[in-house]
Structures are given as structure tokens and as C-alpha cells.
């Protein structure tokens, strides 16, 4: 199948800050693709270039075969963007916002009104249709914002951190919606800071750091590089960390991951069953354990494994 999105050597600076530094992406048509990375990694800049809001300093980007700079208008005809901040008019009602977008997209008045009502109904906003958006809750705003991107269904949908700031219930609703949109054939490119979000939604993902792709693949492939499961041990007492690390290494053979927190020991687990043996060994050596958990590696752990440093730039700078 052809690629919906291709970028090659994309670069973009804002003053002295290099937001993108040779971004290469190939995104297959009809898939959900995730850009995973910490704040400032270049996710939003990439999406804004692809949605024709920014121009790259160097490199090329095509969307469905159309160059985003030279054929910007054609690209706009095929994509929708839901930015990080609600891009709807807060003074207008939910219904008016959707009619506005429908009219601008070229729908006749009656069709725009009908489509607005249909979307509001489907997004559980029918009762709030006549209320100004500024009275909406965070989750409702996010939904009206996504709905505004679906007034006519685009071939490509860009979602910039679609669930940031949402409560768990709203978050799972957005996930379900993304799955259904993708099932109907729209290519979805989303950015996220959460590995579990990328994991649940995206067939493939790219880990972004300092404006370039540092790892690309299915979420299974990426997690294999850190271990499908991670063991998180939180100690009561930082002095016992060396001892705890030694015990974990002895039981597991290898796999202790670097962490910055002096109370944490994290290790790659080939098999969740190994956790029991670790806990037994720790207890026998009288290591005081506060928390003991087996789970997905976090973005931070993926980052540490890939780059040797934490995702949070502040944590890096804090070290001498």
C-alpha cells in the first residue's frame, strides 16, 4: 500500500532552537500512527508542518503525494487538524461551531446544520448543543474539537495530544473514537507522551527526540528493546539500593535498567513469573520494599533504554 505521509530530512528552527533536525517518516495509508516523545521533542512542529501551518526550513513532506508547501491547498482539502488547544470559538454554541466549519468546508446551510446535529448526537453533546462552548467541561471541549475535525471526514486526521488533561473515562472514549475513525479508512497521526496510549492505538510508532526519530516500529518491537514487562521496585530506604540492584541482577541474570530516582530499581522482565522470585529474594535479604509492581515500561524507561537519559530534560540538566 502507498504511503499517506512521507517526510524526508525535515528541519525547522525557531530562533536558536532546533525543533526538527532531520525528521524522516513513512506512514502507511489507513493506519493509526503514533509520534511518541517528551515535551519539546518536535511532535507538534511535525504535525503543524504536515497540516500546512508551518513551513519547513529544509527537507520535504508529502501528504497523499502532495507537497505540503507547493500544494498546500490540495493538502488542506484532504486533512483535518485537532490541535493541542481547543480550536473552536468559545463564545459560540457547539452547534454553531460545527455549522461554521461545515459552511467553510463548502456544505450548504441545510446540510451543515444536519451534519452538526448528527455529530453532536453521536458525540453525546446533543443536550449541550445550544450552550456556549465556554461552559463545556474539558472532556466535552475535546469532543467538540474532534467533532469539528470530522464535519467532513478527512483522508488524514492529525490529533495533537488528543487525551492530555482528560480524565480516564474521557480518555478511553477518545481512544474508542480514534479506533472507529481508523476502521473506516482515515489515516490517523497522533502525538502522545504516553506509551500506553501509543500502545493501545497505534499500529506503528516513532519515538522522537530532539527533532528526529530515534526508534521506529510496532509497539511490540519497541517494547522488546526494553522488555515487554518491566519490574518496578520502590524501596523504603535509598541506602539499600545497591543491595537491591545486586539481588535483582542475581535473580534475573541481567536487565536492570538505569533510573534516576534513588529509591527505584527497574528491571526488564522476560516473563512476569520471575517477579515472584525477585520478591522472595529481596524479602530474604531484609530489603525494605515500599511498592512492587509489574507493568509496561513507561515512556521514561523506553527513553532511558534508547538514549541512556531520561525523557524529562529538566532531570538531565539537574545532573552535573
Amino acid at each position, binding site marked *: 500500500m502507498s504511503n499517506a505521509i512521507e517526510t524526508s530530512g525535515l528541519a525547522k528552527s525557531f530562533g536558536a532552537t532546533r525543533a526538527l533536525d532531520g525528521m524522516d517518516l513513512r506512514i502507511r495509508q489507513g493506519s493509526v500512527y503514533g509520534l511518541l516523545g517528551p515535551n519539546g521533542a518536535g511532535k507538534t512542529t511535525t504535525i503543524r508542518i504536515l497540516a500546512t501551518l508551518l513551513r519547513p526550513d529544509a527537507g520535504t513532506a508529502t501528504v497523499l503525494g502532495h507537497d505540503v508547501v507547493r500544494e498546500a491547498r490540495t493538502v488542506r482539502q484532504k486533512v483535518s487538524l485537532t490541535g493541542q488547544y*481547543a480550536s473552536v*470559538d468559545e463564545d459560540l454554541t457547539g452547534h454553531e461551531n460545527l455549522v461554521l466549519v461545515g459552511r467553510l468546508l463548502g456544505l450548504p446551510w441545510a446540510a451543515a446544520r444536519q451534519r452538526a446535529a448528527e455529530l453532536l448526537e453521536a458525540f453525546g453533546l446533543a443536550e449541550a448543543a445550544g450552550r*456556549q462552548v465556554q461552559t463545556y467541561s474539558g472532556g466535552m471541549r475535546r469532543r467538540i474539537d474532534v467533532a*469539528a475535525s470530522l464535519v467532513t471526514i478527512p483522508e488524514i486526521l492529525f490529533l495533537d495530544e488528543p487525551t492530555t488533561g482528560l480524565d480516564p473515562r474521557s480518555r478511553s472514549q477518545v481512544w474508542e473514537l480514534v479506533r472507529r475513525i481508523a476502521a473506516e479508512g482515515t489515516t490517523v497521526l497522533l502525538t502522545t507522551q504516553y506509551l500506553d496510549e501509543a500502545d493501545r492505538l497505534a499500529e506503528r510508532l516513532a519515538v522522537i527526540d530532539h527533532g528526529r526519530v530515534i526508534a521506529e516500529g510496532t509497539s511490540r518491537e519497541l517494547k522488546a528493546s526494553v522488555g515487554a514487562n518491566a519490574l518496578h521496585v520502590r524501596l523504603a530506604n535509598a541506602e539499600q539500593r545497591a543491595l537491591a540492584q545486586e539481588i535483582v541482577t542475581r535473580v534475573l541474570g541481567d536487565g536492570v535498567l538505569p533510573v534516576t530516582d534513588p529509591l527505584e530499581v527497574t528491571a526488564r522482565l522476560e516473563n512476569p513469573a520471575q517477579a515472584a522470585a525477585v520478591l522472595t529474594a529481596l524479602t530474604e535479604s531484609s530489603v525494605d520494599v515500599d511498592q512492587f509492581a509489574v507493568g509496561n515500561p513507561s515512556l521514561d524507561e523506553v527513553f532511558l533504554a534508547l538514549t541512556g537519559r531520561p525523557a524529562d530534560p529538566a532531570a538531565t540538566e539537574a545532573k552535573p
Partner: protein
Amino acid sequence: MSSDALPTGARTHELLAIRTRPRPASALSAVATLAWRALLKIKHVPFQLFDVTVTPIMFTLLFTYIFGGALAGTPRQYIQYLLPGVLVQTIVFITVYTGVGLNTDIHKGLYDRFRSLPMWQPSPLFGALAGDVFRYSFASALIILIGMMIGFRPGGGLVGMLLALALVLTFCFALSWLWIIVGMLVRTPESVMTTSFIFLMPLTFASNIFVELGTMPPWLQAVVARNPVTYLANASRGLMHGTPAGADIGWVLVASAVILLVASPIAMRLYRRER
């Protein structure tokens, strides 16, 4: 959209299937739609009309009764001179809201959506301006009404009045482009206000809106006589009182054209510039 509220099966398909998008709205239709948005905003936030209601009423009443006796013998005599000028001042002042509104929209991310739609890109600017022209007209009608209630008697009749209004709206439409530039350059709506008023205060007060040119010191006369607002106030007085002066009207049109020709390309360039 609790997950259970999401439609299922065929319904989902109907809702979310990709269909060929319609031909995007024409430039004219996009501008009309965005002007509709501006009017809706007035409907939902009637407070927006506060500035174009209270300020004009206040200015007209205050200036007429405070200065009237001193400047022209009686308020009733003064208002014949003042009203066309106070109309000019009020509308010139409220042009600032064009920049304020634009700045607010940009910072709320709304322009990201507009700019990612396949429409004629400057439509939002023209749509907003169309809404503003409505507000200017509303304020003008109000001032004239108040004026006539307290004794303003224009000799030029309805036609003179409408021509004067058309001239004021033309100049203010051009002037708005300056505040569009400011709105795109500064960070907050508050700084749009402050920056714009640095220009507007001297522009309106260093004019013959309140007093005749002859009463000022010669050096000031030289400045005031060249102020486009002076020409606009003169031209409006002439038209409203049925004694139109071709030269004043001509200079207002020239000034409007110059402002528009200089400011609008800069504004468009800034608008297309990425943020």
C-alpha cells in the same frame, strides 16, 4: 460520547466513512460565513456592544454639555459642530477592537483551525472586518439618534448623513488594517489596546473634532491641519450640514487608500507568516 453513546455498525459507517469533500466555500461565501460568526458573537456576548453603546452616549453628552457653553455659547449651538466630530472619534476609537478580537482568536488556537481549512486564507480577516463594520454602523446610528434628541439638526438631510457615514466607515475600514497588524505582532489583547491608543489619542485629539483650527497655536495648527482625522471631521460636518467640501472628502479618500495600500499587504503577509 460515552462509548455506549457512540453509534454502532452501519450507523458508525454512515457517520465516519470518508466521502469526497465538497468543493470548499468560495471566498465570498467564506467571508459571509465568518461575518455571520462575528454577528453570532455579538448575540452571545452583548457586552461587546457596551463599548459601542456607552462610550458614544457618554462622549456625546459629556462633551456637548461640558464644552458647549464655553466654546459655542450654548450646548445646542455646539452640538451642531461637535456631533459629526464625536461620531468620527468614537468610530475611530472602536476600530481598535478589530485588532483585539484577532489577537484573542489567534491565541486561543482558533486561527489554526481556520488556516488548516481549504478556504481562501484571508477570509477570517475580512469576515471579522464585516462584523466590525456592523458595529461601527450601530454605534453611528446611536450617536446620531442621541444627538438629534438633544438638538442636533443636520441640514444635509438623510442623504448627507448617509454619505457622511459611508465616508467614516471607509476611513475606519482602512484604519482597522493597522490594528490587524498590531494584533498579529503583540502578545496579548491588552497590549493591542495600549499600543493602538498610543497612536489613537494624538490622532483624534490633535484634530479639529472639538475646537476650530483657528483657536490653536500656529505650530499645532500645522500639525492638526494635516491630520487625516481633521479632514474626516470636516468632510462629515460638510456632508451632514449640506455644505460638502470636495477637497476634504477627496483627502479622506486618499488617506484611506494610502493606509489600505500600505497596511493591508503587510497585514496579509503577517497573516500568512507562520506562528
